[in-house]
Every structure is written in C-alpha cells, then in structure tokens.
C-alpha cells in the first residue's frame, strides 16, 4: 500500500506539468454518504428493520479489457422512520486493479422477511410489498436474492458486511418447513457465511459435506 501511495503521488506530480485532462488513477477508493427510505407499497408506511445492501459498482478497464466490478459493499438497517444511511467511506487501494476503477453506480438491494422489492418511488426511496406466492416460490426468490449479492462477495469489497444478510436469509428459510427445498436453501445460506468467515476452500468443503453428497471424487 505504501508503494502504491508513492507511485500515486509521483504520477500525479508528473501529470500536473502536462495540461491534458486525463482522469487520474486514484490512491484510494471513496464513496459519498447517502440516505434513503424504505416504505411499504400502497400504505407508504415506513419499514423498520429492513436490511439495505449497497454495492458500489465501477467499470474497470485495463488496456485489454473492461467490465463492471463491485469494489465495495456495505449494509445498513432502516430505523423506525424507514430511513437508512450510509456514511461516506474511504479505503486505501489494496490491489492493483482498484487503481483503474471508474465509478458507475451504487446498486441497492433490500431484504425484509416476507417482503420483496416493489419499486423505486424516487431517488433513494424504495417500496417493498408483501411477497405473494407459496413457500417454494419464496425460497426461489431468496435464493436469487442471495445470488444477486454474490458479485460483491469478495475480501476486497468488504464481504464480511454481508453476513447479517445471510443470517437473516437463513433465519427466514428455517421457518419455511413445509417444503423440501427449505433445507437446501438453509444450507446454501449457511455456506455463504462459512465462505466469508472461513475462506473459500474451507467454506466450500463444509457446504458439500453438509449435504452428505461428498466423497473422494467418486
């Protein structure tokens, strides 16, 4: 990191002498503070306790390639007014590719038991509505929700902030005991926690072992 800072400073000094408007690679990643609200569709009542997942997405383009990468993720919980708040953040660049990040957007995913995202009413104001569908459909929805978070599941993005979401998903699905798929979904969310807390290899090993369908490659 110290070496990166030196390179960052040296490069910046060199370019100050050339008056070309080039976006300079940064030495740190930052995100501005933002807030919003989560309301119930129709009644517009505030929803307290919803978990809001914010993923900072950027375009990373090297000379050969470019694509969207999630480089930072945080979660927040709505208060009694349905309000959530993400403070500004800043972190040092820890990997070389982060120097080439160009901010694109902040993706917002919202979880609340037995509810689903309905719409974005206005900038920063989201509405949820009660989930309609049986337990099987709810499990499908929760599994897709978890998969949508995966893009931000990396050490460099701060994946540990996703653990409260995984725990909440696990707790909800454990209560859905009338369908066979509930157990496999619960295992999937537990696996997510293991992968984050124990590392990928160990988390994956435990995930497969829990199913009983492992073996020495047979």
């Amino acid at each position, binding site marked *: 990191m110290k070496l990166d800072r030196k390179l960052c400073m040296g490069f910046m000094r060199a370019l100050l002498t*050339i008056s*070309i408007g*080039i976006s300079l690679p940064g030495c740190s990643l930052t995100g501005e503070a933002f807030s919003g609200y989560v309301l119930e569709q129709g009644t517009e009542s505030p929803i307290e306790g919803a978990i809001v997942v914010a993923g900072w997405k950027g*375009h*990373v*383009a*090297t*000379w*050969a*390639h*470019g*694509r*969207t*990468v*999630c480089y930072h993720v945080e979660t927040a919980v709505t208060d009694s007014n349905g309000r959530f708040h993400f403070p500004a953040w800043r972190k040092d660049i820890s*990997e*070389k*590719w*982060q120097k*080439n990040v*160009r901010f694109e*957007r902040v*993706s917002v995913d919202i979880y609340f038991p037995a509810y689903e*995202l309905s*719409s*974005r009413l206005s*900038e920063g104001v989201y509405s949820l509505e009660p989930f309609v569908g049986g337990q099987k459909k709810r499990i499908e929805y929760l599994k*897709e929700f978890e*998969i*949508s978070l*995966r*893009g*931000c*599941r*990396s050490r*460099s993005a701060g994946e540990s902030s996703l653990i409260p979401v995984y725990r909440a998903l696990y707790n909800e699905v454990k209560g859905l005991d009338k369908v*066979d798929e509930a157990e*496999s979904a619960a*295992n*999937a969310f537990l*696996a*997510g926690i*293991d*992968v984050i807390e124990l590392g*990928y*290899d160990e*988390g*994956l*090993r435990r*995930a*497969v072992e*829990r*199913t*009983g*369908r*492992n*073996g*020495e*490659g*047979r």
Partner: protein
Amino acid sequence: MKHSIHVTTFTLFSNLVLSTANGYELGTHARLTQVAVEKSVVSQSTLLADLGISQTRLDPVGNTYNDMSGSLVRVRQVSSFEARYIPLPDEEMLTVPAWIMRGAVREDDSTGEDNPQDDPFNSKLYRPLNHFFDPINNRPLTVPGIGFLDADIHTAPAWATGTTNDNTFSRPNTAESDRRNHFTVFDAREAMYRALSGRNSEGEVVASSESDRNQYWATTFRSLGNVVHLIQDMAQPQHTRNDQHAGKFPEFLTGHSSVYEKYIEARATGVELFDIDGQQGVALERLRYGEYEAPTFDKFSDFWSTSPGVGASSGRGLADYSNRSFFTAGQNLGSGRYALPSNNADDYTHESTEDLLPRSPRKRINFLRGGPEGIRMTTESLFDYFLFNTPRTYSLNRFNYNDQADLLVPRAIAYSKNLIDYFFRGKIDLEADPNSSGAYVVKNYGMESMRGAFGLYYDDSSGQRHLVPGTGPDSNSDWADLAVPPAANSNPGRSAPLTFQEPTNPPPAAPGKYVLVFRGQMGEEADAVVGRVLGDALYVLEGDGGVTRLSSYSNKVNSFSIPVRYRYLTTGLSVYGGRAFYSVNQSGDTYSIPNTLQQYGVSDATLTDLAVLEYGNGTAVYSGGLISTDLNETATEVMLRHFDVTTGNEIGSFSSNPGLNNFGGYVDVAANSTHIATTHNEHLFIYTKSGAQIAVADGINIATQDVTMNSDRVYVIDGVAVRSYDLNGIRQANLSPGPADWFYIEAIEATDKRLYVVTLKSFSAPDYKLHVYAREVERDAEGRLVDERYVYQKAIDFSLGARWYPLSIGADRAL
C-alpha cells in the same frame, strides 16, 4: 468520431491508441453456459455415467485441475472469484456444470484486473484480446498500436481450437506449439485422455490414481467452458465487426464501454431496475433464452465460421451471422466497413413510435426496421456515439438491444450446447462376438468412421488404473490400429474381432469391469478421444413377437441375447453371478399354471429347470439361495418358497400373510440383505429370510406390482412413480415420476448403486415402446443412503422389443 492527439510520452501514446476488448460480462457468460450445459448431453444423457463420473456426488471430480504447457503440469485450485458470477448454491460449485461455468468465467482473465492472477505460465496475458473474429476479413482484433500490448493476437476460433490464425480453417488438426492458451480443444482432448486412461499421448503413466484422473476431468470440463465462452462472444456483434469498446479514457479513441454488454448483464443477472438511455429505474425483463436450434457441424472451426472471407455473408457460423445481421455502436449504418447489414437507409422500413419512454410518452423514437427478422436495426439520432451533433446519424438504444438480444442470446446458448455435444459425440461399446467364441467387437454408435487405437483399462483394488496387456496404442496388436465404420440404419458399426486376456497382475477390483478408450481419427478430427465404462450388467426378459428372450442391455463383456422357449408368462427375472433365474409358464400361450422355475447361464446359455411352482410370479436370487412366490395347493395362500440354486431342491417355505390371495405376487431380496420384500393383494410385506414378518405397508396402487430392494431400501411401483420404504416398512420418499411421456411403469430393479425403471412409453399396437431409465441411488462416503430427493433421472437410450409383455429386468447382484 475520433480525434488524433499528439503526446510526448510513450506511456501516454500507448494509452491513447490501444483499444480493448470486452465480450459479454461474466454473469452473462455463466448463465448462457449454464443453460447450454442443461440442454447438452452432459445433463440430458448417461454421458457422465458412461465416463465413470458420479452424477450424484456434488464434488465428483474434486476441487483442483491441471494447467498443462508442453510436458509441464501445474495444479491449480478453484477460486472464490468464479463463485461471484455462477448462479449456483455454494454446495453445487464443484459439480460438472459448475466446472464448465468456471471455465467460461475465467476465459476473460486479464493481467491487472480483479480476477486471480494465478496463471503459472503466463505472467502477462490479456486473454480478451483474443476474443474477436472478423469473419469477412478472417482477422483478429485489429486496432492501430495493439501490437505493443500483444504481438500475437489470435482470432477467437484460433484461440479456442489451439491453432494459429493461418491454420484454423485450412489445417485445423495442426496444434500450435507453445500456445499460451492452455484450455483449448486440444487441451480438453488431452486432459480427457489422461482422465480416462491415466496416460498421456506418449503412453506415459501420468495419472493412475483416481484423484489424479479426476484432476484431468476437471481440466477437461474447465477447458470446455473456456471454449464455449469464445463461441458466446461471437454473439456479441462488436466482437465480429472489429468494434472496440474499452471504456478506457480517452474514449473517443478507445470506444465507449459497451452499453449493450452492461444492459445484457443486468437482464441476465436479474437486476430489476436499471438506469439506461437517460431513464432512471427502468424495469428490466429477464433475458429470454429461447429455443433456437443451431446447426450441427463436422469440425470445431465451423461453429465460428463455415466460410471465412466473402463466403461469410452466407456462412452458418455464429460469427458469420452476427457480423452480417447487426449494426454496432461503432459500426452503425453508414459506417461502410462492412457491406452487411446494408448501409443504405432506404433499404429499411422507417418506424416512428411514441409511448416507449414512460417519463416522456409523447417523445417519438425513429427506428429503422429490417433484416430477415424485421427487427429494429438502428435508431435515428441527433447525436452520434460520442454525442457529437451531426446530421443524419444513427445510434443504438435499449430497444435495439432488446431486439438484438432476442436473436443473439438463444443462438449463443444453442451454439454452445451443440459444441459441447459435438465434443462428446463419440459413442462406443464392446461386446462379445456372437460369431467367434472368446472374441469381441468394438461397436461405433456414432455417425463418423473411427480409426485409431483402442485400449481396455481397469482399476485395481487401490483404485490405480492399468492397461489390459495386449490392448492400447503400443500393443503391437489389432487394438493399436483399428477401423470401425459408422452406424447405419440404426445399427452400430462393428470392428473386426479382437481378443484379450483377462488381467491378473494386478487383479482387477471388479472382474469384468473395464474402461474402453479410443484415440485417433473420428470424422474430420484427427485427435479425437472417446471413452466408455463397461461392465454394468442389466438383463431384460422380454417378449419379442411371440418369443421370450433374455437380452443384455449392458456393456458387460460376455453378454448377448439368448432366445428362450416361448411362454406367455415369464416373469420375476433375477440375476446373480452371471446366472439368470425366472419363472415361466409351461403351457405355451395359454394363461394357466403350473410354472417352472428356471435358471439360465447368461454367459454359456445353459438352461436348467429347477422346480415346478403352482403359480410362481416372482423370483429373487441372492448369495444364499433363491426365493420364489407361489400359491399353496389350495390356492388360498401366497407362499414364499426357498430353493438351493445349485440343486433346485426346496429348502423351506413360509406363508406370506395367510388369508390373502392374489396371484403369486412379486418378491425380491437384496444380495447381502437379511430381508425379503414381497408384494401381493395391494400390500408390501417385509420378512426376514426365515419368514418372520417385520412390516406390512398397504396402499400399493392398482394391483400387485413389481418390488425390488437393495441393502437398505425397498422400492415399489406406484402408478407412474416409485415409492421407497426402509426395511422396517416406513415410507421414505415418492421418487419423482420421470419424464412426461411415461405412461406406466412396468418393472423396476435396484442395486446398491442404481435404480432401473422400465416404462411403457407408447401403447399403440403393434409397436409397443418401452424405455429403461436409470437413476443413481445416493450414498455418502460411508456407504449410507442419503436423501432420495436428490436422485436424478437419466435414460438409457434404447427401446425394448415390439411386444411389451411379459417383461422383467434384473441386474447382476454379484457386481
């Protein structure tokens, strides 16, 4: 519109002139690959079982793979990176489909990006530079100055197939030596050969243990994923129209980052609200995968282009199609680089539509419609791609992208699926030659001739794989250079007779169980590899135009079809140690008693009458004897009679639930089980072998039906489903019914590894069609039965004879 700019430093010069590559984004590739694999032979056939790969383990080939470069091999590990993009639960991330998806994700690895920088051989490699292919000019990504970044950029087909740019279409069987891509078709073939045989192309032992061979299976599947990624990028027209889209400053030189790709990624990954075209929070619909039927080809390069050059305008490759059929952001109408689509605006139908933008409903968008499918090819715009105001220019927006995606995405999937199927197109078998005792013939079920080396391999008790002496490429025998014609008129091609000695040093873990491996010319492919695990013995007692026949539908050596005496009722087939036992009506074509209990040597055609039964319907043989159902003399009780298989002498009998009487019922006993299961009078009865009743379960659908059991489960037919019970008669699961075309289940048979289900598919006389489906019986590493909910259906791809009744199946319980 691009501007030139003079700069003073080399670094800035290279920054400004180099353009960069970008295919579909990783989530899109993972999903396209997932759908393609689901439709392919990997998921829709017995391929994995034929290759000896478990379909029920979630980690069948482990968590490591090999990166091969010449004679060097480096072991690599799966990474959490791929898991970010693959839409599978974590516990499924080591399955075969997941391995293929991992390859599809990692094909976009690039130095300096967030992917793991773990290539052990290439310290600097920008793989995406090789993902372009202009079929009109037969050239890779061509941008001024790109040679500074990589002096040897390949076309996508060259990169995928492992050839040079010059050889891809003219000499496709010539591998590029020292190639930097180690996950090409050539590498997949070499890995597959090592996985099957444990040897490399030189015949050296490189992977004799099962775990070592599994690493090569993982390599095979990962490589296939890399290859299908390169086909999928051909469904991104910017990749076939040399249209750079880096998104790296300054973009008036390098091109905007691809809005199409980000938009498709959002639709593929289920983002619900997306900001696009100046509209915030646009609700997205999911990507439509469609049901496109791609053409089939007889060489790999055809998947990209069947006629590079001017012929590409009518070619059937995916690059041919996307190049001529769509405009791109940088090569839009009027750009003139390519003749197709037409650059004449008058060749299109003008469409002016309002009400497309929810927040500006009165705003009109002017499309130009055209092409074979009449899609919105482009949009008239006041601003060009770089937002410079010019007269009469065109741009693309999400409405154009939606129309493009509806055509391109299904094709990306279909071409990927067909490429996987083409890779695994070989299908071989080995059977005893009915015309020559002690000899065998190789059977070729494929549509291409084969010529090359065939080897038989077996595993010893420690899992090490050995070559059967006298077979294989260095055997100096017929096995080393064997020609097998293709299948014709639904019959497989057959080789000349071959012989071999059963191995003894070391002795095989399972006598009679082999892996047949081919390497050589198959059709146009000079270095094809095909494999098949032999030795799964399944026998069928079937009616065939009035003659009851015992047939083998397995690959076990020494199996063949034996006609037996005509009987009306011939049922209760049970097989053990190469001998088949069944009950047969003695009186010809009338429905009457008594029956004869017979045994038949499946390898030597010896037929022996064992005993006469009053009305035997079920037969079950195990290591300790033979049990048959029968009626007592007064036909008021169902009896279970116990015979010595050697002498046929009855050694005991007991009544199954006195007072009930409904034919002879069915019976089964597992090879090493202490229990007997029998069904009659719509009940399931479980006994010890001495006759003590353990359990009664009722509610068996319709009349008495077939029952089968293995070491710890009893399975009964229940209409179009199969029910399982434990040995205490407690119901465990309704195993899901099979495909929708099942009409009725006629017979079932279970071993500790598999459950076979014979279904009546067609009920139209005189052509009754039946199918045998096999599904894995799930066991964990300790051999304990695991949850039957995860059992999968796979069909053995053959039909039984024209007469469907009588019918019974049996798997050799000794294996």
